[in-house]
């Protein structure tokens, strides 16, 4: 009796192993992308259309643009969807990337508590950052070398302020955009976000979003997203053909229309601009 039970147990375990199938599809594309395209739900909405139309299955890992570029450089992925144009151009110049195709944009905004302790509402971006610094109000930075973080560092530089790395009021989360917005909310601080993720945050809060957009509209706050293919010379194993297909599809009228129609609480998150 004893042994019979044990045998049944072991047999069950073996069946479980056998049920584990190895998924090896040839038409499979691996992409590294930013937290904003994933967190907002854009990819969940867009990619099934791509898979249906092309028969290519696409998997993605979402991380900061800095790490996404690193994954591309190491050939751990096949294609990139990122948003840091200066870093992308260096990436191509260094021989890691091949084509760069601009597909959509939105803009960065500074959000903060409604009572606006540093009094930045309606100011231009450089003035706003100077006010935050002089009043020492909590500012949440991604601190993860993502596209948003790269832009934020540039903005401090443009305002003539060295990046307040060690200041007590300057909080570096090292996490994704939505997570950083939560930190800003909990600490009553300011943060910089792309508009798409901000709208996602608003929709999650169901109209009770305590953080409001305070600074917007500067041309430097433009946030461009691009698809990058990898240079086959650097990554012969990367699926270059499929990557090109994805890049072409993202720029196609069909995909561009889908991006245009992607809305949360009635608001557009991304504006297509493929040429």
């Amino acid at each position: 009796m004893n042994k019979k039970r044990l045998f049944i147990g072991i047999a069950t375990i073996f069946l479980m192993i056998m049920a584990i199938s190895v998924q090896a599809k040839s038409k499979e594309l691996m992409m590294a992308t930013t937290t904003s395209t994933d967190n907002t739900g854009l990819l969940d909405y867009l990619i099934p259309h791509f898979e249906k139309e092309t028969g290519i299955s696409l998997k993605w890992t979402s991380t900061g643009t800095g790490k996404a570029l690193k994954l591309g450089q190491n050939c751990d992925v096949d294609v990139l969807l990122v948003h840091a144009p200066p870093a992308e151009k260096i990436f191509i110049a260094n021989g890691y990337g091949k084509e760069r195709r601009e597909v959509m944009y939105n803009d960065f905004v500074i959000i903060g508590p409604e009572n606006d302790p540093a009094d930045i509402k309606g100011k231009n971006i450089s003035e706003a950052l100077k006010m935050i610094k002089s009043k020492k109000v909590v500012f949440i930075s991604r601190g993860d070398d993502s596209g948003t973080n790269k832009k934020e560092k540039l903005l401090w530089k443009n305002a003539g302020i060295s990046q307040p790395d060690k200041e007590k009021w300057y909080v570096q989360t090292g996490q994704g955009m939505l997570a950083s917005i939560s930190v800003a909310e909990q600490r009553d601080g300011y943060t910089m976000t792309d508009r798409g993720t901000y709208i996602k945050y608003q929709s999650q809060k169901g109209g009770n979003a305590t953080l409001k957009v305070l600074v917007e509209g500067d041309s430097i706050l433009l946030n461009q997203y691009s698809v990058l293919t990898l240079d086959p010379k650097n990554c012969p194993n990367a699926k270059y053909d499929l990557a090109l297909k994805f890049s072409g599809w993202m720029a196609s009228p069909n995909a561009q229309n889908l991006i245009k129609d992607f809305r949360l609480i009635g608001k557009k998150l991304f504006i297509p601009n493929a040429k």
Partner: protein
Amino acid sequence: MDFIVAGFIKAIELLISGDYSTWTAVLATLKVSTISMLLSVGAGLPCGFLIGYFDFKGKKHLRTILDTLLALPTVFIGLAVYAFISRQGPLGELGLLFTLTGIAIGQTILAFPIVTAITASIVENIDQDLKLTLVSLGAGKRNIIATCLWEVRYGILTAAVTAYGRVLTEVGISMMVGGNIKYHTRTITTAIALETNKGMFADGIALGVVLITIAFIVNLSLSFLRKQ
């Protein structure tokens, strides 16, 4: 406070409605932790038995090293495995990054010292009289070892369950090596981390309830086996 209650309600909804993303995460978790547990038992059982059964020089030091390995942080294992299986790493050709196999390698490294240490302790504690009795009955060496193994079968079960519990709940390796890819390498723990990051606490709690339920079922079925 509402989100805590909402989390429990949502957990039941997710499971009953057969929500696709939840069930793929559950399946990925079960696959990868079952493989890691079996591999670590396969490797750790003989090692632990040898260490526990035989006396040899340097045994004490080996035990110290083994006990230290019990405290290996998952993020460090994740980093090490990542470095090895990245395309630029020594095993890059195999293309294991962002796969369940990659996660299983890391989790096996995590669970191996646990199985080895527990097995060694149990084997060390086998009644010395048992061996003497067997020898006096004229049993051969192979017979003695087989009887000892049979004697510690429940201890081995404990080692396996402990290893399973550890890999089932770990998040560092799954996140770094697996990449948290939806429908593929997203496990319950990485899904919880993601939902929390997104501020979706109710969804996170729901997945937590699912994970605890799985752990409970596993333990329940093993204690059933033990009673027989």
